[in-house]
């Protein structure tokens, strides 16, 4: 193990996976952008775009160090210090073991996770957040919430000889989260809930219909998310091996199960299976299988996905009951799906399927694993929710987080970005026939 040399196959898969996960954020921008009204499409997409910009730059300066550095030897964060990532070109990845892939590839792969997590939150506050305030939020939230939480969950530590130091808190406790059920989805879902509370309801919520302005755009987003998620989940093995294959298969079939689950609920409840339901079901399945994808058998993945589709389709109505305007259902899909997926390992986890996994209840492993999973779920939820409330209110009280009533009615695209998404009219100036 000491003399690990670069494995080009593993590296090839990680390079491809990194590209796939990057694509998820534009995918998310389309998924969200299609769901809002014509007057806020661009703002929705810009929240994702600027997140890519800000988080990438922070990552180089201190983010990777804060999440995956070793200097602190703390279970809560990696290390303080500026990095620049300049001297690490020929190093291999060390994360609880030496992986035969360049550390910069690992850093780039993990960067994509750091990007999509805050981008996910934006769905909760569609149509009403000041763009500058959002940018400030992303910078603070990534620093205070995501980077540390990523350390808790994903930092398996610095291995020197037989000693491993700097292991993250949840990783050290044996909480299983293969690709980010806690660090990404519960984290984003809890933050989305907090921000929806901080910003309050949109004007006209529950009274006006706020129909998705373009379902084909939603479907495009869902398609790109699904595609990119293979990198997210199967890439999390950090190798092109059997575990990656398992994660890939499970990602596919859980998502399929969730599509069916969500559509069945709709068919029974509303009499119609909708395309928004299919897209939403897909995302809920992808979310739920994320933590579990390398720990369960494919048949169990189908079941996890199917249940996720049912649970999330029921959960999206909760906001009307509790009266918070989680506009695009970050809570209903990512929080609920993430919680279910994380806990499901406690049921379906199997050490036969993955030798580094543990047996869940159904495989005779008892409730021990479920308990650990509940710890991960609870800790990440609580920290993210509280920290986000504080950050959110702080921004609201200082520079203001919510746009004015006028901006909201006239349209945030026009007022915040001085643009209109579409100019399709054939008689628009300069168009049409002689």
């Amino acid at each position, binding site marked *: 193990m000491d003399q690990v040399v670069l494995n080009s196959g593993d590296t090839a898969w990680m390079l491809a996976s990194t590209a796939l996960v990057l694509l998820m954020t534009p995918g998310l921008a389309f998924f969200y952008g299609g769901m809002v009204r014509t007057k806020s499409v661009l703002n929705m997409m810009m929240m994702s775009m600027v997140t890519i910009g800000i988080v990438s730059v922070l990552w180089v300066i201190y983010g990777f160090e804060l999440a995956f550095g070793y200097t602190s030897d703390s279970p809560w964060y990696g290390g303080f210090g500026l990095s620049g990532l300049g001297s690490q070109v020929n190093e291999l990845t060390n994360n609880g073991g030496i992986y035969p892939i360049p550390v910069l590839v690992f850093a780039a792969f993990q960067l994509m996770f750091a990007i999509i997590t805050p981008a996910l939150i934006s769905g909760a506050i569609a149509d009403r957040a000041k763009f500058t305030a959002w940018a400030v939020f992303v910078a603070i939230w990534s620093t205070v919430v995501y980077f540390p939480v990523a350390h808790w969950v994903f930092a398996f530590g610095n291995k020197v000889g037989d000693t491993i130091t700097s292991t993250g808190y949840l990783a050290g406790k044996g909480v299983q989260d293969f690709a980010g059920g806690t660090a990404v989805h519960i984290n984003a879902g809890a933050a989305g809930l907090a921000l929806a509370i901080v910003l309050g309801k949109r004007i006209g919520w529950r009274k006006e*219909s706020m*129909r*998705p302005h373009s379902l084909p755009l939603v479907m495009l987003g869902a398609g790109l998310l699904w595609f990119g998620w293979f990198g997210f989940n199967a890439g999390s093995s950090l190798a092109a091996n059997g575990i990656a294959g398992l994660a890939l298969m499970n990602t596919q079939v859980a998502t399929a199960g969730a599509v069916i689950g969500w559509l069945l609920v*709709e068919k029974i*409840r*509303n009499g*119609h299976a*909708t395309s*928004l*339901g299919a897209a*939403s079901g897909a995302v809920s399945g992808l979310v739920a299988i994320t933590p579990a994808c390398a720990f369960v058998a494919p048949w169990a993945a189908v079941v996890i996905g199917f249940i996720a589709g049912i649970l999330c*389709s029921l959960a*999206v*109505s909760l906001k*009307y009951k509790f009266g918070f305007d989680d506009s695009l*259902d970050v809570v*209903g899909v990512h929080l609920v799906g993430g919680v279910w997926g994380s806990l499901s390992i406690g049921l379906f986890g199997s050490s036969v399927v993955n030798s580094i996994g543990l047996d869940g209840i159904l495989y005779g492993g008892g409730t021990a694993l479920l308990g650990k999973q509940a710890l991960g779920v609870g800790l990440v939820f609580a920290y993210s929710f509280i920290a986000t409330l504080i950050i959110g209110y702080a921004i609201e009280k200082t520079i203001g987080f919510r746009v004015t009533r006028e901006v909201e009615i006239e349209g945030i695209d026009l007022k915040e970005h001085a643009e209109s998404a579409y100019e399709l009219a054939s008689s628009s100036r300069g168009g049409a026939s002689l």
Partner: protein
Amino acid sequence: MKLITAILKPFKLDEVKDALQAAGINGMTVSEASGFGRQRGHTEVYRGAEYTVDLVPKVRLEVLVDDKDAASTVDVIVKAASTGSIGDGKVWTTPVEQVVRVRTGERGPDAI
């Protein structure tokens, strides 16, 4: 001269257009509209929330005609547009004081 305005079901437009041409009317202007009336709208479902959309797609047809053709033109439109089901639409006639053809500046019935 008269302006005949008709609100019609969109899928009837081609038939009405053909009927008008058969009746010797060779010009008209069409635009999109949405109607509200006895005809019910429809229900749409988004993530389980049901919305009633009470505006129904319609087309709006405008035909300028000479006084003498007004009544017969209305009849042609009504006949071609009717399906007998609710929501077939309305046709109405308003007086027009002057018509000009932009290209030539011709005025009155010649301009139609």
